[in-house]
């Protein structure tokens, strides 16, 4: 029953955690990868319908959201540096900023969803768009990919809250802040997913 550590040293534990999290990221790449594969296949098959679908999306929603997410990543990275210098308060501020920007991202995302609902563009609920039938495949992929991304953001926000609580209780120091590094890696990775979703969904050129 006694929870004994399998590790022989703290360094060993740290590098094991790192490796574990990077393995998780590889898993996540393949998790989103299934969707990216579906996207690539259909985009090659129905280029015109995808371009038409892309033009139904609001360019500025996507662009602003990219900027928001990049900024939140910066805050997270700075927070990581702060705790390495034992600055807990600064870390707390960074975590707060990261989380608020994450929330802002989700807010923009959901207002975009609502906008599409008003435009009758939600498959399975009120899809009534003019255009080629395959355009609905694009819109479906849009909802599934961004929805899954938003779900990961929610998990990330939960993790940030947990970090904030731990930090509040003074659990982190320059020598012990593994959770900050772990959550940071996860948060940056979700950012990267969005970095690819942005051009794939919003920036399809209209070729004639």
């Amino acid at each position, binding site marked *: 029953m006694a929870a004994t550590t399998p590790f022989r040293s703290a360094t060993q534990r740290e590098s094991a955690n790192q490796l574990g999290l990077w393995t998780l990221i590889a898993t996540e790449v393949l998790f989103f990868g299934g969707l990216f594969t579906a996207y690539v296949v259909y985009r090659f098959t129905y280029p015109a319908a995808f371009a038409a679908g892309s033009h139904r999306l609001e360019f500025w929603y996507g662009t602003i959201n990219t900027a928001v997410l990049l900024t939140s990543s910066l805050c997270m990275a700075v927070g990581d540096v702060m705790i390495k210098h034992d600055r807990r308060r600064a870390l707390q501020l960074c975590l707060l900023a990261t989380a608020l920007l994450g929330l802002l991202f989700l807010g923009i995302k959901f207002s975009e969803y609502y906008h599409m609902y008003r435009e009758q563009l939600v498959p399975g609920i009120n899809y009534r768009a003019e255009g080629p039938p395959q355009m609905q495949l694009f819109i479906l992929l849009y909802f599934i990919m961004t929805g899954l991304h938003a779900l990961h953001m929610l998990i990330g926000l939960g993790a940030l809250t947990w970090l904030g609580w731990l930090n509040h209780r003074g659990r982190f120091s*320059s020598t012990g802040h593994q959770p900050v590094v772990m959550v940071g890696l996860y948060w940056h990775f979700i950012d990267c997913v969005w970095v690819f979703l942005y051009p794939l969904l919003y920036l399809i050129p209209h070729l004639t």
Partner: protein
Amino acid sequence: MTANAPPVLRLVGVYLALLTLLALTATATLLPPGAWSTPISLGIATAKTALIFVWFMRLRDRPGLVRLFALAGFFWLAIFIGLALTDFLTRGWPA
């Protein structure tokens, strides 16, 4: 690994580079669309991801093994997409 934390200023620099890339890819949509539009926007996305991986996720300071694992997922995804396309891109070719 706690020893060499990167200066905050460098992170801000990376952030500005990321924003520049974003501005670049957003402005590119104003240009007349062409066959190169998508490769360019995906190239920029790759560059952004590389910046995030190397600086924000500090892949630079990690041992080779971790770098290998970081790339493994993308490598496998490339295999997946590539081999799936051997089917979808060659449909309808004569036998």
